[in-house]
């Protein structure tokens, strides 16, 4: 998904209601952040959330939404596998609306990634088809009929253009007779 698309969607979310900040992360990696916080703080939040996600996964709990309230503001965290969307807002009444929007965004985002991946694979397949050579046509020239040879038979090579061609006569092998070895006694 393009950065502009993320920016546009999350920008709309950020400008709605009492939302003051948005962070999108994948595991502990920040994908997008627009919050009134220092960069290292944003990174720390993503790491902490990754730890929290790991804990719930380890405990086999399917936690997909968290909401925290503090004396200075509220936080909604929507989790979908490795992706997390964190939204800072000031009105507690907006939790459900914000969470719903965040979930919709995460679904769209992952669908976008899937579509991009699919398109990439499809393009690669097309590229392979374009550069691949002409399909091989086996000419009759390349076909040779070979049969096990026996003494007294002849090797025949089948050539389409030339017809049957006797290439070499097979001579029967002479019978082996014991020969005296050099230095042997008679």
């Amino acid at each position, binding site marked *: 998904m393009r950065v502009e698309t993320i920016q546009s969607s999350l920008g709309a979310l950020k400008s709605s209601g009492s939302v003051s900040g948005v962070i999108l992360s994948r595991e502990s990696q920040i994908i997008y952040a627009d919050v009134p*916080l220092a960069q290292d*703080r944003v990174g*720390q*939040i993503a790491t*902490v*959330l990754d*730890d*929290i996600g790991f804990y*719930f996964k380890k405990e086999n*709990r*399917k*936690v*997909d*939404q*968290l*909401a*925290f*309230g*503090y*004396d*200075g*503001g509220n*936080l909604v*965290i929507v989790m979908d596998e490795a992706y997390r969307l964190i939204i*800072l807002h000031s009105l*507690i*009444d907006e*939790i*459900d609306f914000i*969470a719903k929007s965040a979930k919709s965004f995460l679904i769209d985002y992952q669908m976008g990634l899937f579509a991009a991946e699919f398109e990439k694979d499809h393009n690669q397949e097309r590229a392979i088809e374009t550069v691949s050579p002409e399909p091989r046509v086996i000419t009759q020239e390349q076909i040779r009929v070979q049969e096990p040879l026996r003494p007294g038979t002849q090797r025949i090579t089948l050539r389409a253009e030339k017809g049957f061609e006797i290439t070499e006569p097979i001579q029967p092998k002479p019978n082996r007779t014991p020969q005296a070895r050099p230095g042997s006694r008679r």
Partner: protein
Amino acid sequence: MSLDPESVQAALAQALNQKLPRYFRASGGSAHGQTGYRDTEKFAETLMVLQECALLVGERLEMNAVTYAFMYDGDETSGFRFDQTTDPNNPQVVGALQNRRVAMREFTTGLSQYMEGPML
């Protein structure tokens, strides 16, 4: 005050069947509810996990005073909030477990109503 085990079981069964919230009150390391020891223990565990998570995230945001924490865990909604009407030196927490996903706003309203009700 100990509750009759049969009425406790009946209260738990009714709450689970009707998917109603089971409310709890906690302070100073102990929790109380009306749906039995195991259910209260489950709430206490959820409370600890949520409080820890809220504190960990809050620290990074430089917001340390947690006022509430809710979560959806599968088909269950759980959470707590501090009772502002209690003594700040010994604050009490009111929380609930509910075996269905309810809007968090609705969950908060339920907790507020429980807080305003008679102390148990």
